[in-house]
């Protein structure tokens, strides 16, 4: 079943107050957006319950009955493959007493039966039955089984990635992604067989606001050579390479962003698996045919990306992750490894191990990130620290026209342009009561 979107009554931060906190034009941001409970509640309502949120890769649930559980904001959902092959995204909360309906994080199920009173729901979320149904029929004047299904989100896919939104008024996924699809294809469409997730996932808690890592991946090229020097020494035997800044870019569309160069294998090299680098190089001509010469050189290149609001990836390193909010000061990180479906098994195995040892909680690169992100959140508890406006004005006037690159393109990766675009979109969504109030053309 679906529910109507209703505005709950509570004291929301005003649009004016939010605009004072986030000055995208000057590149100044108040740390309050990483700490305040009211802002967080507004994010859950106006970003996570409205935007298209990544929920699964098709390959995780190939067969009818396959499911996984995840969250959209703090709403638990079941992503389920129904008998007709369609993917359903179901609120993981029983309409009877609100208990969680599915407690496993992945598997295959004939139906989802609530542990509390035995209400049962089909793979498509429809209500199937409950114990003592005849008593309900006799004594509930408004008993209507068709109204008792699990609440459903809209579902749409893009080249293997599945997204869902609980907002019936949200634009289509294609509109939501816009020209960012051109950049997503670097990851998702460099091979005719498409992509898949390797099996399993790694989840962990970082005590930081969810936006801190999301903005890190959207455009923070600057931190790599400083934060990750020790990891680079471990994996490459030397520090992070310096890119020529005039031939590398940041680009963003609708708050989604990617920072990248055309070095072909810079990210891939970090895995510490020469065969993966060789795999990418050997396929240069095929990739150029699919993506064009310029874009094919982004496939394994140094860079990072965030699809607004909370889906991030590193092309070439092939780590894919979501930053799931668990209160304003905690993020549950979910990570997967993405590979080309047609890649040889030996290459997939190199990716699995390479991602583990670089970008996972035990990874030589990721280990140094969490510490920074937690402290960057925690300092915002201080009154004086909250008065400070953080500096986001790197590359304020770096926008360029590029004949091939779509979206808002900025020269130089050492740049805060994607971060400003991310927070610009964030501000627009928080200030707009409906999608139709949202300004065009971010």
């Amino acid at each position, binding site marked *: 079943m679906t529910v109507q979107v209703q505005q709950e009554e509570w004291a929301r931060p005003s649009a004016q107050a939010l605009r004072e906190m986030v000055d995208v034009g000057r590149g100044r941001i108040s740390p309050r957006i990483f700490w305040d409970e009211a802002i967080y509640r507004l994010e859950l309502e106006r970003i996570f319950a409205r935007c298209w949120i990544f929920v699964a890769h098709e390959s995780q649930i190939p067969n009818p009955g396959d499911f996984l559980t995840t969250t959209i904001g703090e709403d638990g959902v079941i992503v389920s493959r129904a008998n007709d092959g369609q993917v359903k995204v179901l609120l993981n909360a029983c309409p009877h007493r609100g208990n969680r309906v599915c407690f496993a994080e992945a598997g295959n199920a004939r139906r989802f039966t609530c542990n509390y009173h035995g209400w049962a729901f089909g793979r498509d979320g429809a209500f199937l039955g409950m114990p003592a149904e005849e008593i309900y029929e006799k004594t509930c004047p408004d008993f209507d089984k068709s109204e008792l299904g699990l609440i459903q989100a809209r579902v749409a896919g893009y080249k293997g990635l599945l997204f869902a939104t609980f907002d019936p008024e949200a634009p289509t996924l294609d509109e939501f992604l816009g020209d960012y699809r051109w950049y997503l294809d670097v990851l998702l469409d460099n091979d005719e067989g498409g992509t898949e997730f390797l099996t399993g996932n*790694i989840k962990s*808690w970082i005590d930081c606001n969810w936006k801190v890592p999301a903005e890190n991946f959207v455009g923070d090229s600057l931190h790599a050579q400083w934060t990750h020097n020790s990891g680079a020494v471990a*994996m490459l035997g030397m520090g992070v390479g310096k890119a020529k800044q005039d031939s590398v870019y940041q680009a963003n569309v609708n708050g989604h962003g990617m920072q990248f160069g055309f070095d072909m294998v810079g990210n891939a090299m970090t895995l510490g698996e020469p065969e993966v680098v060789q795999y990418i190089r050997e396929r240069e001509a095929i990739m150029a045919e699919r993506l064009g010469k310029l874009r094919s050189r982004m496939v394994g290149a140094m860079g990072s990306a965030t699809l607004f609001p909370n889906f991030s990836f590193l092309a070439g390193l092939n780590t894919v992750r979501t930053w799931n909010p668990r209160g304003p000061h905690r993020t549950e990180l979910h990570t997967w490894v993405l590979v080309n479906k047609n890649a040889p098994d030996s290459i997939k*195995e190199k990716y699995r191990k390479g991602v583990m040892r670089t970008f996972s909680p*035990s990874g030589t690169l990721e280990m140094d990130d969490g510490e920074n992100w937690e402290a960057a959140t925690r300092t915002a508890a201080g009154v004086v620290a909250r008065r400070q406006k953080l500096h986001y004005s790197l590359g304020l006037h770096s926008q360029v026209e590029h004949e091939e690159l779509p979206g808002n393109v900025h020269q130089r990766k050492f740049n805060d342009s994607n971060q400003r675009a991310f927070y610009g979109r964030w501000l627009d969504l928080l200030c707009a009561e409906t999608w139709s109030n949202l300004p065009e053309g971010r």
Partner: protein
Amino acid sequence: MSQAQAQNPADAIRDPRPPQFPPLPERDLVFEVEQFLYREARLLDQERYEEWLGLMTEDIHYWMPGVQARFRNDTSSGPLIERMAFYDDDLLNLRRRVTRFMHATAWAEDPPTRACHIINNVEVELTDNAREYRVYSTFVNCRGRNEAEETWMAGRRTDLLRRDETGALRLARREIHITQAVLLAKNLNVFL
């Protein structure tokens, strides 16, 4: 538990089925293994990583699988080697991790993490190979960071210890299972 196994508890107690454990090894061997594990733990607590690496055989497989909360009847619920893992390392990759730990720019290690490895429930089993022993143990690991951060993990390990040419014990396999399906920490900057 399947229906077929369900038995009236009153009947079940008349039919006790104690476990079949292999015979206990010599006390000296158990003592030697215990001391090996305790000393190994102290090397980690003291960040003596070079010496710790010296305890590994050349073919070490150091494996800590990811944990998922799946249903009991899920045939793929167990830890599978093809799934994502926290550690799935050979000697080269353990060495890479140590290289980072020891580097002056490993910012998240400075001030150092204060780790305490508590090792317990040590059991030693003989194997078909006279030079190799299967060793079960449990651990509690506590990490302190900066001023007031504290992280706890508990888990079980299954090791294969091998006696080298000099007679010294070396670690050849380690399988680590922690209790957390979501790692309740920002990182895993510790060997277990």
